């Protein structure tokens, strides 16, 4: 199988490992330079996910947890569609790739054993969702807008409302975990995690924009968030490492 190398990653655009304003990075950031791998490598391939492994409610966070627990009641919170396309840096769609999301409920509370925030759980909201991108790289989730929440970083530090995204692409080296913020949220500018990147355009690219054209009248608003994965360069390799 021919697998071109990926275009080199722009490490000035990506967040640096050590961003001291985000306290958790202090002890968890590697200090040595990354070792550059040239030539064919197994990370230029990656796992393939079949769309038949995805359940019909998996992308509906308003219903998926409630339904799994025998409830007919929807999750509480502002109903929103979050949608967009997964593309690569060459503006090519990335179809058939797994997109996973997780988020706090409308009150800013996660359903997690280590979570201690005083906002209540919503018995009808779990907070996970997933889908496989379509032929044009498109994905779509139905969910409730998550609330902001405090986190133990400084004396009074809050995360802006956000949805965590995990995306695979077609190569293990394209693997990406990120967060989508919401247009107009004044907490974005105050958040050390959101501001881990130095280029303001990098942060701007993480902000989902209100998309009235995708909203549903008398039902829900919509936010659009496109995700760009690393693109393939022009050097083909004969990759004998994986058979799939």
């Amino acid at each position, binding site marked *: 199988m021919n697998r071109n190398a990926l275009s080199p990653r722009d490490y000035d655009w990506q967040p640096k*490992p050590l961003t001291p304003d985000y306290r*958790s990075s202090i002890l968890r950031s590697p200090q040595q330079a990354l070792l550059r791998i040239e030539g064919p490598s197994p990370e230029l391939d990656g796992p393939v996910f079949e769309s038949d492994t995805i359940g019909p409610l998996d992308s509906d966070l308003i219903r998926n947890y409630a339904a799994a627990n025998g409830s007919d009641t929807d999750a509480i919170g502002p109903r929103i569609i979050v949608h967009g396309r997964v593309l690569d*840096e060459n503006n090519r769609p990335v179809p058939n790739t797994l997109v996973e999301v997780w988020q706090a409920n409308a009150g800013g509370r996660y*359903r997690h054993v280590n979570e201690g925030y005083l906002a209540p759980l919503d018995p009808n909201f779990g907070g996970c969702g*997933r889908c496989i991108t379509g032929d044009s790289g498109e994905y779509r989730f139905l969910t409730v807008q998550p609330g902001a929440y405090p986190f133990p970083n400084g004396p009074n530090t809050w995360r802006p409302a956000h949805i965590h995204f995990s995306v695979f692409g077609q190569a293990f080296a394209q693997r990406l975990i*990120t967060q989508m913020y919401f247009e107009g949220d004044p907490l974005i500018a105050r958040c050390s995690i959101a501001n881990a990147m130095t280029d303001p*355009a990098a942060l701007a690219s993480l902000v989902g924009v209100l998309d009235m054209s995708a909203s549903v009248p008398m039902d829900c608003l919509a936010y659009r968030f496109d995700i760009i994965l690393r693109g393939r360069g022009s050097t083909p390799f004969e990759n004998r490492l994986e058979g799939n």
Partner: protein
Amino acid sequence: MLKETPSQTAGPYVHIGCTPCSAGLTGVYPADPGASITADAPGVRIRIEGKIFDGANAPLRDALIELWQPDGQSNAGIWLRKSTDLKTGVYQFDTVKPAARSGPPYVCLWIVARGINLGLHTRMYFPDEENGPDPLLKQAGPRRDTLIATRPDAEEDERDTGFPVYRFDIRLQGERETVFLDI
């Protein structure tokens, strides 16, 4: 050219999205993706386990680690995903020994967690293989040992589990910081 979407930390609750079944969100998905290999995956059964240590030598108990490797005959890729244990920090992959490629066999690993702004790629080699000529290990120079698993309790493991257990600890900082890769 478009710019790659910037990475953000997976945060402490990555389990909700990536390993929901083992994090108490049962019923939404039938199983966690990448929880186990298929029963017919060809190759010798092995276990890979270890901890991920921060700069204060404390194990990360909220990390997610993914594995990518060929099966024992290079027929297909194997992808697995585990969270580190919420109490002990141990991660554990039950897999097969990967087929050798042009050089010695290895598995690819990817780590995310709270405090890690950009996911970390590394590789794990096996202590019982001819690793000498491998170009990456050569390139790693004096840090090559951070990429090679150990078998501290080889005899005990075989007796207790019936298959080899490879220990691979990952260090994010310090004198023995693991070699991380730019691919």
